[in-house]
């Protein structure tokens, strides 16, 4: 840098204004810290460069948790959705999957509006190329124009922009997503700071012109009639609006033939791509090669917004050359005459090995420097936002000198996500999945507020009014469950005719209402006719009462597992432990422990490649320290 000038002095700088950066900046500013949010282009704030939706299996849980902590994603999608569906409703309350199609442009506009109207927060266009540290502590960030922004803490949320390149077959363009400028400077600066970088890859399908599609050859997928908001602050009736449909079509052997014939032109198979791609986001050529015996693959056509004719072709991400793409898209029923508006591409980018982070998302080696989102090796808007709010809260807590927030695996999907990325070995971009949450019966999307509102309130992200409403809801649930527990029925004709009416066995002795609700055919609402003193309760309260009573046996078993888990989490490992002094550890375990530096025995036991015997030796050592 030839000429540095001090441009500003604030508490927190957030680098990158995607889904992680927005949540981080909002949390920090709302906690009262002066904050600047940098974006390479202010018109790409909260951009959705890939799929036009928010939520889905386990990701919906993340959005609800972000909302319960006082984050923005749930509110923003509630403002801008064009279709919403609750999926998986038959598979158990813990795996309900709320997903909304977003109007991408409006999603951006609304988020930008919120940022611009938040006190203590400034959005600023510019590429950050340097991070200034002193004695292992952050001092400021520098933009490409030579402006130094002094700060006490910073959050890096560069998404897929770092040294990014996009691949369209043999055409390679050095750019960030969607043709935007990439960020060039920061990678080198991070390397100089001793931070290990990975090279990951992901991809996106083409966008096509709605007018060139024959929807009559596809299956329409409308939204749900009864909508469920993402934000606990919204009621369904407040956000009702007309919904836009998606459509389903399929690939066929013709599509697959074209792909096979042109594999040599795919950068993935010709070895041009260096990055590691996610298994759960395979390109269409990947699917055809790996699952050669499948004769067809599902393809969903999804609108990108209300005011655009562009549509997203889910399932057809590809890095084949453009001419091959067009030919193969046109083999799909309904897409015979399709016209592209944007070509599918694969994108490679720098990200970090998140094992270098603490559970607070602060770098172990640099005080006050936090990071979140795709930069941490994850994928997905929701995963990014979830880390963003935690990094924002913790950057602010760092500045204020108060306790930082770590959610554990029994508290939230966010806890599972962060614990996984900072503890386990990363082989590919990380996607949240319900099967990663071992206590998922407790981590339901419906009870995210019960789990996390208290925490959001403590950090000043939940208003008093909302908190009071939350307390009232909680009390109403507990009161109603207690009341139900006291209701006993004698065997009567009225009772039995109701029971038989719902297809469940009549009773010959007395029965508690709780036990009737537990029957597979029954639920809380169905018993309203027999329950003459039942108070008028809102849907969300009735839902909690029903779930907590109906699945009580399974839930309490899981709570017992959590007790065991908590015991291991409670065994702290001192910060200054020297693993070379721990006798009997295998070399591999010593190296892993040194790299991850687990904070407790529970985390130590989850490190990939650490055996139960290693954990035992560590326990032995800790006990000998205590003696």
């Amino acid at each position, binding site marked *: 840098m030839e000429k540095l000038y001090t441009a500003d002095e604030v508490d927190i700088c957030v680098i990158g204004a995607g889904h992680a950066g927005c949540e981080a900046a909002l949390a920090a500013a709302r906690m009262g810290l002066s904050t600047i949010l940098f974006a390479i282009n202010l018109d790409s704030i909260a951009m959705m460069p890939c799929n036009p939706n928010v939520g889905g299996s386990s990701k919906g849980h993340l959005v609800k948790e972000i909302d319960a902590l006082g984050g923005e994603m749930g509110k923003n999608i509630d403002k801008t959705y064009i279709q919403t569906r609750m999926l998986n409703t038959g598979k158990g309350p813990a795996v309900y999957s709320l997903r909304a199609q977003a109007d991408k442009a409006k999603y951006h506009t609304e988020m930008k509006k919120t940022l611009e109207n938040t006190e203590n927060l400034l959005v600023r266009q510019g590429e950050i190329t340097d991070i200034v540290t002193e004695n292992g502590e952050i001092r400021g960030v520098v933009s490409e124009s030579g402006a130094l922004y002094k700060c006490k803490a910073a959050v890096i949320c560069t998404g897929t922009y770092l040294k990014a390149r996009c691949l369209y077959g043999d055409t390679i363009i050095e750019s960030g997503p969607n043709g935007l400028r990439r960020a060039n400077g920061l990678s080198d600066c991070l390397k100089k700071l001793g931070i290990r970088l990975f090279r990951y890859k992901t991809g996106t399908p083409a966008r096509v012109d709605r007018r060139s599609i024959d929807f009559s050859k596809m299956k329409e997928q409308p939204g749900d009639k009864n909508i469920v908001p993402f934000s606990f602050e919204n009621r369904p009736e407040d956000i009702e609006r007309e919904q836009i449909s998606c459509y389903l079509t399929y690939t066929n052997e013709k599509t697959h033939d074209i792909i096979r014939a042109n594999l040599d032109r795919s950068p993935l198979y010709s070895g041009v791509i260096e990055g590691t791609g996610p298994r759960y986001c*395979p390109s269409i050529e990947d699917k055809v090669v790996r699952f050669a015996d499948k004769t067809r693959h599902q393809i969903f056509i999804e609108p990108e917004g209300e005011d655009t004719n562009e549509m997203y072709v889910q*399932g057809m991400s590809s890095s084949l050359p453009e001419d091959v793409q067009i030919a193969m898209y046109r083999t799909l029923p309904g897409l015979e005459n399709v016209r592209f508006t944007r070509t599918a591409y694969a994108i490679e980018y720098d990200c970090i090995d998140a094992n270098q982070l603490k559970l607070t998302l602060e770098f172990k080696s640099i005080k006050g420097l936090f990071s979140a989102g795709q930069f941490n090796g994850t994928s997905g808007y929701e995963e990014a936002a979830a880390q963003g709010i935690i990094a924002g809260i913790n950057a602010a807590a760092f500045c204020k000198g108060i306790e930082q927030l770590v959610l554990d695996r029994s508290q939230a999907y966010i806890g599972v996500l962060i614990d996984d990325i900072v503890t386990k070995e990363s082989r590919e971009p990380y996607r949240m999945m319900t*099967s*990663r949450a071992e206590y998922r019966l407790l981590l339901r999307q419906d009870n995210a507020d019960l789990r996390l509102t208290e925490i959001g309130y403590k950090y000043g992200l939940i208003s008093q009014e909302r908190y009071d409403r939350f307390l009232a809801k909680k009390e109403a649930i507990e009161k109603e469950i207690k009341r139900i527990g006291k209701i006993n029925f004698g065997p009567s004709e009225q009772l039995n005719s109701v029971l038989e009416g719902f297809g469940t066995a009549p009773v010959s002795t007395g029965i508690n209402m709780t036990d009737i609700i537990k029957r597979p055919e029954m639920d809380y609402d169905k018993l309203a006719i027999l329950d003459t003193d039942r108070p008028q309760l809102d849907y969300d309260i009735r839902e909690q009462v029903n779930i907590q009573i109906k*699945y009580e046996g399974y839930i309490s078993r899981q709570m017992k597992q959590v007790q065991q888990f908590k015991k291991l989490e409670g065994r702290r490992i001192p910060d200054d432990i020297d693993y070379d002094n721990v006798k009997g550890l295998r070399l591999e375990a010593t190296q892993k422990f040194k790299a991850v530096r687990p904070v407790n025995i529970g985390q130590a*036991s989850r490190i990939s490649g650490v055996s139960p015997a290693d954990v035992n030796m560590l*326990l032995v050592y800790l*006990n000998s320290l205590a003696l």
Partner: protein
Amino acid sequence: MLKVNLSDTIAAISTAAGSGGIGIVRISGNEAIYIADSIFISPKGKKLAEQKSHTIHYGSIYDEGNIIDEVLVSLMKAPNTYTREDVVEINTHGGYRAVTAVLKAVIRKGARLAEPGEFTKRAFLNGRIDLTQAEAVSDIINAKTDKSRELAVARLKGRLSAEIKEIRESILTMLAHIEAAIAYPEHDDETMTYSMIEKGTREALARVDRLIATADTGKIYNDGIKTVILGKPNVGKSSLLNTLLEEDRVIVTDIPGTTRDVVSEYINVGGIPLNIIDTAGIRATDDIIEKIGVDKSRRLAEEADLILLMFDGSRELSDEDRELIALTRDKKTIALINKLDLERRLDIKDIDAINISIKNNTGITEIYDRIKEMFALGDIESSNEALISGERNKASLLRAKQYLENVIETVENTMPEDFVSMDLTAAYEALGEITGETLEEDIIDKIFSEFCLGK
């Protein structure tokens, strides 16, 4: 999912060597008091949880509605206990049968059978025992069985882990189907129906049951056939013992009993593992003119898998002999008529006995043949049946069985898939404990290798 478990509750019989009719069941862990309370009834209706630490209480132990024994219960609350956990010791009076029945009741209520040395290990891990050298403890943690048994068990273990792996693989496939459908709700790949899951679970359950059924045979290879030599004084018990010991071409060892600390010796002749109990008693009493206690014989007989009942061919049947015949009637017993070299005066009918002469070393191989036949050992060595050995493995299998039964119950109650997944995962993990495998990324790996998923 947890690689180490600090908080489950363990139990074992911990009676000191040579004690009479009293047996002690020791329970240690978070739930020790809760478990004891769930089977203990005091005449005054006292609840142990509400009593002071380091107190003794009189009452009875019940299991499934039946009274097992009158007991004294010592209550010791953490941290001033041997393990620094809550400890309850149940002192029974009704002999070996009663003490094992109490242990079974304790395990049914949620305790896990302690591994050898586990109370001591906990005492250490909880900082109770002063061992500063970590290496000293690594021996406890990695406690190895002695070589002679290890050899005999190794082959069977190989088969066991192969069988466990297959069962786990079938469970994993079901899990991957369920989890893939949950993770990708709109995906149209063939999903498993409930009847497929039920069928698969029942198959897995049957295989687990078969393994559990082999526990006794597996235990024989691991621990040896618990054998007791009974007979009146001077019948030749110590001579027989010495003959058997001499024939052992492997290693003679002392087994620190996990259940009882009766002095015993492990021998392995021609693939027949014998664990001869109370060898000290045989040596101490046999040559001395002393009437052996019937009580002691009864206790030994109750404990044994096999009784070698010796008669003196040169003397007539005595009352003592008759008493021994009576108390071994329901047990696996091989009658041996010794002193074939002397003039025959014994006249017993209805008993199929082997005539031996220890002095001339005749009839000994017949004893081995009879044992082999009795315990079907020939079949096991040559068959490909997997066997489980060790109480820890059995406990893991029993838990896997429970989880699989939960799955079937969940399916029968038409509860949603998520609840099926919960118990399938738990069964998968319980089986993994036997082969030392943890869950990690198995399910996710399986999902993406089996199904074509993703946007």
